[in-house]
């Protein structure tokens, strides 16, 4: 059994949070650059140019990319031959989150749902983190992280269709969700689509789909084709960068598909803004 000290996890988590707050991942940067070249609208082109300038300034001067530095979302795969010593893995991830957000001057955005009281002085600075655990074979811990902003989360939706809806129903539904969202989720967006499973499995899959690198190809050829089809349809909407009209509404569509019940076809659409801050580490 491999032992990993609590503090090793805290430091690793803190490091990726500090880094992600200011350094846009290369895949996102490259995708924005391509979108700027492809964009037909001069107004939207200028917006994307500002986003690239913003990424350069944030990286060089270590300023947060956006004032909405998000809730911290993690997908963690824990090897069955690993033991964290000196504390719980979950506590270590939360501690690393708090230290990262506070020390890097990122915004504390968690609050109580009804009083809207900020939790920074009670529960902790931008705590609790949202953590999804899985157990796998091996002696490592793999941590995938993304900062998830509010504007794009607010337009996300899920629905359980009858099986007859099929691919056609899914394409139409995603298009409807993105059309209704307009400029509010800060396009050009990434669209995560979770298909199948149960109601909650579909939503978690749609979230996890956003952690994939933009520009990567879905290993399932059928899903890869469906991603392209939905992307083409979404970009016909004309929403464009920040909703100002244009051809580049979405940078990518990512699908995660699961086996499901014979009676249902769950579909979830989770949207990520253009500032797709995501990364992963293996300890």
């Amino acid at each position: 059994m491999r032992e990993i000290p609590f503090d090793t996890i805290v430091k690793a988590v803190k490091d990726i949070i500090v880094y992600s707050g200011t350094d846009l991942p290369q895949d996102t940067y490259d995708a924005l650059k391509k979108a700027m070249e492809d964009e037909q609208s001069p107004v939207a082109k200028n917006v994307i140019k500002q986003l690239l300038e913003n990424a350069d300034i944030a990286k060089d001067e270590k300023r947060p990319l956006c004032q909405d530095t998000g809730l911290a979302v993690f997908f963690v795969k824990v090897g069955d031959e690993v033991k964290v010593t000196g504390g719980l893995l979950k506590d270590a991830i939360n501690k690393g989150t708090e230290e990262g957000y506070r020390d890097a001057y990122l915004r504390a955005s968690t609050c109580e749902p009804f009083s809207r009281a900020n939790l920074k002085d009670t529960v902790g600075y931008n705590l609790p983190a949202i953590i999804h655990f899985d157990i796998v074979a091996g002696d490592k811990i793999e941590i995938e992280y993304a900062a998830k902003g509010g504007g794009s989360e607010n337009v996300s939706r899920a629905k359980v269709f009858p099986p007859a809806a099929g691919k056609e129903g899914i394409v139409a539904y995603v298009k409807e969700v993105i059309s209704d969202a307009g400029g509010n989720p800060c396009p050009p967006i990434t669209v995560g689509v979770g298909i199948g499973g149960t109601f909650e499995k579909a939503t978690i899959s749609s979230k996890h789909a956003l952690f994939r690198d933009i520009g990567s190809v879905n290993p399932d050829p059928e899903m890869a084709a469906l991603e392209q089809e939905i992307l083409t349809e979404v970009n016909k909407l004309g929403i464009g960068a920040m909703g100002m009209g244009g051809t580049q509404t979405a940078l990518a569509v990512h699908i995660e598909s699961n086996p499901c019940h014979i009676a249902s076809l769950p579909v979830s659409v989770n949207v990520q803004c253009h500032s797709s801050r995501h990364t992963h580490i293996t300890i």
Partner: protein
Amino acid sequence: MSSTYHLTTPLSSEDTKQLVAGDTVYLTGVLFTARDAAHKRLVELIEKGEALPFDLEGSVIYFVGPTPPKPGDPIGSAGPTTSYRMDSFSPTMLKHGSRGMIGKGKRNQAVKDACVAYDGIYFGATGGAGALLGKLIKSAEVIAYPELGPEAVRRLEVVDFPVAVINDTHGNDLYQQGREQYEVKA
């Protein structure tokens, strides 16, 4: 065809009436920040006929909730927040002399009508460009409601702050018209 303007605040009616949805404007001068809570208080003062903490005439209001500043900086990252939450307050602000708003996202018809009636402009700043926009803010001073924390009213001095005209004094709406222009119908 969209044009580019360099304007200095406070804005006059002559400044705003020449602008058309889709134009790019670089603003220099003073912006006042206010979000939901501050708007509620300002509108209450207007309704009671009491003095405001700043002169509304020609003012431009920025809807923003910045990150904490690093030591030595005037402000942290400071991109626009979603504007519809200010829809119920903005017409009153425009009626009493304010001439510009900066945010992101759609406004309701009452706000668009108020832009036409009172020579107001709704500008869109680039959401998520917080580092770039924060850097163009040369000074930030809390002038009212410090107890509101990030929602306090601040007086910002900006240089060449880039915004796009979304709703103009002629009733145009870039979100609607821009989208129609690039939409590919089935």
